[in-house]
């Protein structure tokens, strides 16, 4: 009797878990395995040579071009992460200092721009920074420059601005959530023990918001390191990132096997960086916080 009940329960559990798990195995694990295998193949004019070889990796690491673009991508992602952290922390903190309706409205105002595609969010910077864009018109109108500046667009700095703009919510949200979770009694306790407001912030608020900062940094780093759209639209040739190099293997040279190897290199590099950055972090929490 209890045995039958038990096995019925197990069957029900299996039926609940199986569909999504199977889906993920077929459409996430199998393709990933396939990509890994393909990275050891070689693209030929007839298709693929399916002999396993390290040629692709050798090519990638023997040419300074790929290594430097990879290092650049990591560097840009790291700078983006730090820049986003520094510029948005005060924004998240400001939200927690507002009460009631004002806070809801402020949060809503932060959300709305992120309710649209990152293609659009990147695209909006073209009219801002272009030759006849807003900034150039402003500078010329104020008489600061006589001719429109070309360098506003298509540089690494432009890519950085774009990346911070496109991904800032992924930093604000987890930081806001961990700030909001701090028990106000802890700040009262700090005040009670003689800490002035500034020291309350640095000794209590800041350390207690660390989980949010780590979540946000992981999210932004992850997104920025694999960026394709933003460098493609705003970077020009000087702002190109590793994601664009990968894409070009498919869009222009059609060297899928080499593209697979570059993809694997990118994934491994990102995961290594994240392992360093987020030791002891439970990743599902990172995304539960970031996903809303």
């Amino acid at each position, binding site marked *: 009797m209890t045995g039958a009940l038990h096995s019925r329960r197990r069957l029900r559990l299996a039926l609940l878990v199986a569909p999504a798990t199977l889906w993920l195995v077929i459409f996430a694990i199998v393709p990933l395995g396939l990509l890994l295998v393909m990275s050891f193949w070689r693209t030929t004019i007839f298709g693929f040579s399916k002999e396993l070889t390290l040629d692709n990796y050798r090519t990638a690491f023997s040419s300074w071009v790929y290594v430097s673009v990879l290092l650049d991508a990591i560097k840009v992602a790291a700078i983006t992460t730090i820049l986003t952290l520094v510029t948005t922390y005060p924004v998240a903190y400001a939200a927690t200092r507002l009460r009631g309706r004002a806070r809801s409205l402020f949060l809503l105002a932060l959300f709305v721009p992120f309710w649209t595609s990152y293609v659009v969010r990147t695209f909006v910077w073209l009219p801002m920074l272009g030759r006849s864009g807003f900034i150039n018109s402003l500078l010329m109108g104020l008489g600061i420059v006589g001719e429109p500046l070309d360098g506003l667009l298509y540089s690494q700095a432009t890519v950085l601005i774009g990346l911070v703009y496109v991904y800032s919510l992924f930093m604000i949200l987890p930081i806001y959530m961990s700030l909001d979770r701090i*028990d106000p*009694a*802890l700040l*009262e*306790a*700090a*005040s*009670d*023990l*003689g*800490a*002035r407001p500034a*020291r309350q912030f640095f*000794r*209590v608020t800041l*350390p*207690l918001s*660390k989980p949010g900062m780590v979540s946000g940094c992981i999210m932004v780093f992850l997104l920025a390191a694999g960026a394709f759209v933003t460098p493609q639209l705003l970077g020009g040739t000087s702002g190109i990132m590793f994601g664009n190099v990968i894409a070009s293997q498919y869009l222009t040279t059609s060297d899928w096997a080499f593209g697979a190897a570059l993809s694997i290199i990118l994934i491994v590099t990102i995961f290594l960086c994240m392992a360093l950055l987020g030791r002891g972090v439970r990743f599902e929490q990172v995304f539960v916080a970031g996903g809303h």
Partner: protein
Amino acid sequence: MDAPPAGEASVSIRGVSKAFGGARVLNAIDLDIRSGEFFSLLGPSGCGKTTLLRIIGGFESASDGAVLINGADVTDLPPYRRRTNMIFQHFALFPHLTVAQNIAFGLEMKRLDKRVVAEKVQAALDLVRLPDYGPRDVGKLSGGQKQRVAMARALINDPDVLLLDEPLGALDQRLREQMQEELRRLQRQTGKTFIFVTHDQSEAITMSDRIAVMSGGRLVQVGTPREVYEQPAERFVAEFLGSSNLIQGTVSAVTGGRAEVRVRDVAIEGVARAPLSPGDPVVIGVRFERVRLSAADATPAALTGAVTGCTYVGATTRYELDSPQLGRIVAETPSGDGPTFAIGDTCRIRWAAGDASILAA
């Protein structure tokens, strides 16, 4: 309420009021708390006791009035400028710091020398009997240990006044009793003024030197535990502390501190707790355990009652009686000695005249 001798007041509350939005939570409170005293603010939730404590600590600002600590006006000082320390309801230990770092926090804010801090932290840990707990993680402590750490963290700053906001509320019954003793010990050992907020009357009675009973944002009565328990000034106090029979009647005569009250057909004498005059409607408060029962005899005009219920409570037995003179009466007698009664028995009901408090209705 007798004023403390001048210069001995540790905390003086002068006409403090507080309003949140339109609601008045504190109404012109005047109170002097003596130096070195264990003082309790007692009352039901919402009576304003926590707000008053938070005003003393500087966490809330008074809408009106002034707070003096050791004679100095601190009304406008933030918490970090006051020589008070607080034990928060859930202790508010810093989760990102160790036990020792938590305790050292206040000294660190004063930028004391590291070696001095370490010594003082160890002394504080010894004081609360957790000598080896310094390096531990705060999150892994039990409720009682957290309580001790919170005490050490506050006392290490050598405050003039220690404020305790229902610190035992989060603990289970056994631990509560242990910590009550522990708090008393710490208070005697340090000689500090403790202001203790609680809604638990037995806790307040067993621990305090003096108690202020609060209700609806005002002070109802201030006195020693014995005074507030045995000489309640108002009906509210008689009901809130312990359990009392409340018998309604009308004052028929007043002589000195005593009054005679007519209840139905009988006259009952008691101690007047408020200025009374004949004709005033009053209640007579008699504590359950002060009612004495004996077998009915032939005494004329004796108060009697028929037992309608009997509950064995352990140390005591509680009888419910229906009295033709008084209505429903409850008596709590020690179990084990004296006569026992069964349902349906008729008893004689008595109490000492000093145990009957005549209170404004």
